[in-house]
């Protein structure tokens, strides 16, 4: 029962009308969108800052080292006292060696785990394994680097006596282990989003689970799976600590994976942890290498987004 107002008590509407906060409220209301837009623009400014920083310092670098020599030179000896050489191809070769090994490790194991989790595993198994994969994805890369240097390399040396202490193989394998959870979990997401009706349709015709997985689910989820691999490649290219600890610092333009290498990221770390003076060519060279690295990962990310966008449109 709605009770009538007691006459000596002001009504709620009167109290609201009296409340003095109105003007202040309107002001806040007008300001807030602008303040939030300002905050949101920080992320854009960060990108602009990254690109501008890299470009500006790289241009200074190119005043001293010709672009052509940088892009196509096959020797990288920045610390040589006489005639230092700044050809980036050896650093790219080092990065590619590690990335290719990582992909060889991570793709079969990652997609294999994704198929197991999405198509074979029981709900309970899935609920145990997925958090473990998350733990694996959350381990700092410095820990992986230590693991590569102190465990994987000595282990591999038992089978490959020629393997040097610093090499491409060991960090490659460990980077593979690092990106494996990413491929597994993103691919599993893609496979789980394939509608069950499609699976049932194939099972009802007498297909085995394997045939359903390989001939129905994987093709349907293919763009999602590929996107996950591309993103993982981008992560491998940008990975720094594992290769810094276990890869060495000898940039070489060849296909040898048993000897010491240097990746783009490891070079930046090497210069930063030494004391290359501000303003020297070596100082600017880390920006030119950083810019190259940035472009590599940017292209990979754009490809991954383009692929996964297409895949989102399918269902």
């Amino acid at each position, binding site marked *: 029962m709605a009770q009538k107002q007691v006459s000596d008590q002001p009504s709620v509407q009167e109290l609201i009308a009296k409340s003095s906060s109105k003007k202040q409220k309107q002001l806040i209301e007008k300001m807030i969108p602008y303040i939030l837009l300002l905050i949101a623009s920080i992320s854009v400014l960060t990108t602009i800052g990254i690109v501008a920083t890299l470009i500006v310092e790289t241009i200074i670098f190119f005043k001293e080292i010709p672009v052509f020599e940088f892009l196509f030179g096959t020797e990288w000896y920045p610390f040589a006292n006489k005639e230092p050489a700044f050809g980036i191809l050896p650093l790219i070769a080092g990065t590619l060696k590690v990335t290719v090994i990582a992909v060889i490790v991570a793709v079969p194991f990652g997609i294999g785990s994704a198929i197991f989790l999405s198509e074979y*595993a029981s709900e309970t198994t899935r609920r145990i394994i997925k958090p473990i994969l998350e733990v694996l994805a959350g381990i700092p890369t410095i820990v992986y680097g230590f693991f590569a240097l102190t465990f994987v390399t000595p282990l591999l040396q038992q089978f490959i006596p020629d393997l040097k202490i610093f090499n491409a193989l060991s960090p490659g394998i460990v980077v593979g282990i690092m990106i494996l959870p990413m491929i597994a979990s993103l691919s599993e997401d893609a496979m789980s989003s394939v509608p069950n009706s499609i699976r049932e349709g194939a099972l009802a015709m007498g297909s085995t689970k394997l045939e359903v997985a390989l001939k129905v689910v994987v093709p349907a989820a293919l763009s999602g799976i590929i996107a996950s691999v591309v993103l993982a490649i981008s992560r491998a290219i940008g990975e720094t600590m594992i290769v810094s600890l276990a890869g060495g610092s000898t940039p070489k333009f060849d296909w040898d994976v048993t000897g010491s290498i240097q990746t783009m990221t490891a070079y930046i770390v090497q210069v930063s942890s030494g004391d290359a003076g501000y303003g020297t060519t070596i100082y600017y060279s880390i920006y030119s290498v950083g810019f190259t690295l940035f472009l590599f990962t940017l292209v990979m990310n754009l490809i991954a987004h383009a692929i996964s966008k297409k895949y989102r449109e399918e269902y």
Partner: protein
Amino acid sequence: MKYVNHESVVKRMMNRLTINKIFKAIFFFATLFALLALAILFYRIITQGIGYLTPEFFQNFGSRFPAKAGIKAALIGSIWLMFVVAPVSIILGVGTAIYLEEYAKKNRLTDFIRMNISNLAGVPSVVFGLLGLTIFVRALSLGNSVLAAGFTMSLLILPVIIVASQEAIRAVPNDVREASYGMGATKWQTVVKIVLPSAIPGILTGAILALSRAVGETAPLIVIGIPVIIQFLPTGLLSQFTALPMQIYDWAKRPQHDFQFVAAAGILVLMIFLLIMNSIAIFIRNKFSKRY
């Protein structure tokens, strides 16, 4: 005549079922591989590092001698770092998420911001280090201080916090927003009193996971020139400092074999630090998850 010969189908069926079983085993072992790697990694680090986890390890600063090396400066430094990164990244991340989910109109600018965030998430951490070196260390003259490192790390994990906050805000059902507007509440009142309280568990879970990434990141710290051998604790935001992953990196690189054990002990401290943070995240997720 029949096109399908059921007898041969049945014969082939045995083979197909066997292949299915074999592949099931293969896929299972693929999954096991990751678990095995994780198990070995933990086993190695625990057995190597546990011997060095003494009270002195927490009381000593860095040293040239493995037996005297301690983690005090790095541990305290990492905690200082978190005191900068947590507020900066959460305010920026949640603010951006509120803007994108509640205020932004559907236009090119909004699309651009979204697209930019997803690309920013893919930029290697070492490149963020170059940004921090140029802008915070040099241009703003913050030096290799807690503040410079904190700002750099905040920008690094910003995309993660934004995306997690966006998801948490999006999960708040629209009808409670409508109810609030229906009472004459303004947009900001609705955001502060209705949307954020419901989204906070999701936001905090995402933020803590992002922060634990910042705790373990090494590359940006090296690039902005965070020193390793430090014999004092930070006294302020502009003070020099060192952090756990820096210290571990330094120990792992040293030629003396005994430093490997010190490094493993450092990793154990780092992992315990992360474990505590993640437990808090899980606790928040379970305790405050609201039902609709």
